[in-house]
């Protein structure tokens, strides 16, 4: 018996199979349903009805609003934390980092239930501020996903660059704006991707915090439970396209930023 050897391509087969069965095939089904009607005929009606109804567009806007605000809040909260952690000379940084990441290990439903009680104590009646509660819930849920990537980029940041900036006469603020921040853009981008996309569809948070307005995820569910696969699939497809565009856009930025040191604020 000779040694069993696998080429790289062969090692990809299991993943390839997985991809075909569980990613590619469902996608084909979604596309098929999205562009057909109940009689199985090709139609663009699902697409036009999505963009012509003030309710579906409103839902898209509402989900977008939640995602944008959540991402913004996460970024504002996470960056200082990640920065302080990465810059501190404390030896057991990983312990502190763990404290921030630890909530992720606790069951999600349990955390939101606890948050619900805390918010009730603070606000009294939760139903008056559904948008605010949702943003708080999402932030609570996704904050670690923002801290981690920023922290990892910052910790890898070459200290000599900062020294060089100081040697060339930059003060602390200038160093931060012209060196640290531009160099951490890839981390920020991956943080944004990890927070923005799930917060557009994670309707469990809304359900649990008594926000009865539909977002994209729940709208798809609503169509499916009305046995309307076609409109539901179309919304899923539209969401997919949005995600795709978003990823392409952010990819371009994170790549070029890693290469040239111009940065968003460079110009």
């Amino acid at each position, binding site marked *: 018996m000779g040694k069993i050897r696998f080429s790289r391509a062969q090692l990809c087969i299991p993943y390839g199979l997985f991809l075909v069965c569980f990613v590619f095939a469902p996608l084909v089904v979604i596309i098929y349903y999205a562009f057909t009607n109940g009689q199985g005929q090709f139609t663009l009606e699902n697409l036009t009805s999505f963009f012509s109804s003030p*309710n579906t567009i409103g839902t898209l806007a509402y989900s977008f609003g939640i995602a944008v605000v959540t991402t913004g809040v996460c970024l504002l909260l996470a960056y200082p934390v990640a920065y302080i952690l990465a810059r501190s000379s404390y030896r057991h940084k990983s312990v502190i980092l763990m404290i921030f990441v630890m909530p992720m290990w606790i069951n999600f439903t349990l955390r939101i239930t606890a948050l619900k009680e805390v918010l009730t104590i603070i606000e009294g009646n939760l139903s008056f501020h559904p948008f605010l509660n949702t943003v708080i819930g999402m932030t609570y849920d996704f904050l670690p996903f923002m801290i981690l990537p920023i922290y990892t980029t910052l910790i890898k940041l070459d200290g000599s660059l900062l020294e060089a900036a100081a040697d060339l006469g930059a003060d602390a603020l200038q160093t931060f704006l012209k060196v640290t921040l531009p160099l951490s853009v890839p981390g920020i981008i991956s943080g944004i991707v990890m927070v923005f996309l799930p917060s557009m569809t994670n309707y469990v948070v809304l359900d649990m915090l*008594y926000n009865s307005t539909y977002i994209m995820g729940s709208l798809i569910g609503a169509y499916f439970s009305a046995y309307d696969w076609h409109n539901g699939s179309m919304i899923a497809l539209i969401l997919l396209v949005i995600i795709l565009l978003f990823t392409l856009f952010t990819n371009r930025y994170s790549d070029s930023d890693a290469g040239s040191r111009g940065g968003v604020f460079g*110009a």
Partner: protein
Amino acid sequence: MKRMRKMYRLVQCLALTILMIEVWQGQGSIGNGIGYVKAADQTNQKEKPIVLRVCNWEEYIDLGEWDEEEIIELENGTVIFGEQPIYNDFEEWYQETYGREVHVEYSCFGTNEDLYNQLTMGDTYDLICPSEYMIMKLMAEDKLCPYSEEFYNRDNPYNYYINNVSPFIYKTLATNEINGENWAKYAAGYMWGITGVLYNPELMTEEEASTWSVFGNPKFNRQVTLKDNVRDSYFAALGILKADVLTDEAFLAASDYHERLEDLMNDVSPTTIEQAQELLDLLMDNVYSLETDSGKADMITGKIVANYQWSGDAVYAMDQADEDDFELKFAVPKESTNLWFDGWVMLQNGIGKDADKQHAAEAFVNYMSRTDSAVRNMYYIGYTSSIAGNREDATIYEYLKWCYEAQEDVEDSIEYPVGYFFSGDNADADYIVDVDASQIGRQLYAQYPPQEIIDRSAVMRYFDADANKAINQMWINVRCFDIYDVPVGVWIAVLVAILVLLRTVYFKSKLATCNS
């Protein structure tokens, strides 16, 4: 050359993949083959265990493992105890009674719509337990098998269902028709109930709670919850919209009152749907939220004062609250209430022409309809069984007394007739139980509502394809955020953000051109 090599690799990979699939499939069939041969060798082909695929609601059957102190000893000597899941007991009972081995594959579904989608996507079950409207839909689509004539033979002592089912439930089933066939032929009642308002008597009066318009009452602004479910919310909306007619005395006294009531509560005309949407839009601004499950806990923690509730969940919530020394009550709106039930139906694509399987499925329904099984299930899940027992076997009535009968020394006990359920005659002296007067509006009232509530109950039928589409669209419109509601400030902020973004992009591309 290099490219050729690459191509060769690719072909190799593809071939390997195909080979793997082949081997995998082959193994499967080889395996099956061996299993089949073995079974055939050991026993006669006929003796192979019958596999019965049952799909029921989650948490909707006794799964056993009761504590020792949970043993129920009734006055008629019956002892009720759930040691193991009831469907395992059924397997043993079937083996003993009919000498055949049966294996129950038990699975669960979350909502009627989920179940329907599972069925359309190709899942096959033999016996399922959907709600009345889904049964109607499945009947209309000709997906169900009728029960055999033997199933309705009262002389067979093992036909527990027909001998024990409540006359009230059986009548409801037998008087409703789809495509000219009555439901009783296709469905066997399992659990039933009504809908109403669970409320906190300290903060809300019974009168305030006894109407569907409590959900629009500004006094309880943001303190009441509706159900996160289009049918229930639509029913409440109909109750409010048609309140004037529904409570009109001439209407109540009409000889065809019940038919007209059911017609009103099944109104799916476009104008009514439009009115319901406007009303629900208003209600959405007055309710705390829509919920499916959280309402019970929120009542107990005092977040809300009243919620739309199914009778079984109301019983559960009142029991829970009692443990915390907190009183909750159940009121049934004066306009009308939704009489619902879940029933066992056999599916054509599961049972087919397999007589053995149909026999096992019918036996399963019969086993569930044994009075002791019904008590076990009722005790475990808190809903009311459609099983009433009979004059010889009064276990269910004994269980009712075990739960609710007043102690002999209680002074203000009242007579509570439940004859409509047990014998079909509410004046039946055998079925009048003495209960504490405080039971009115409490557990017993929710579990076995008095006759006058049953009189104003209506079954909500399934919506046909057009109505279903219209009502679901109405519900989506209610739930979605309207783009015209976006405040001007937000539009301006968005505009500014886009401008900033464009500026950044512009400078970046300029920079990129300079660099290159």
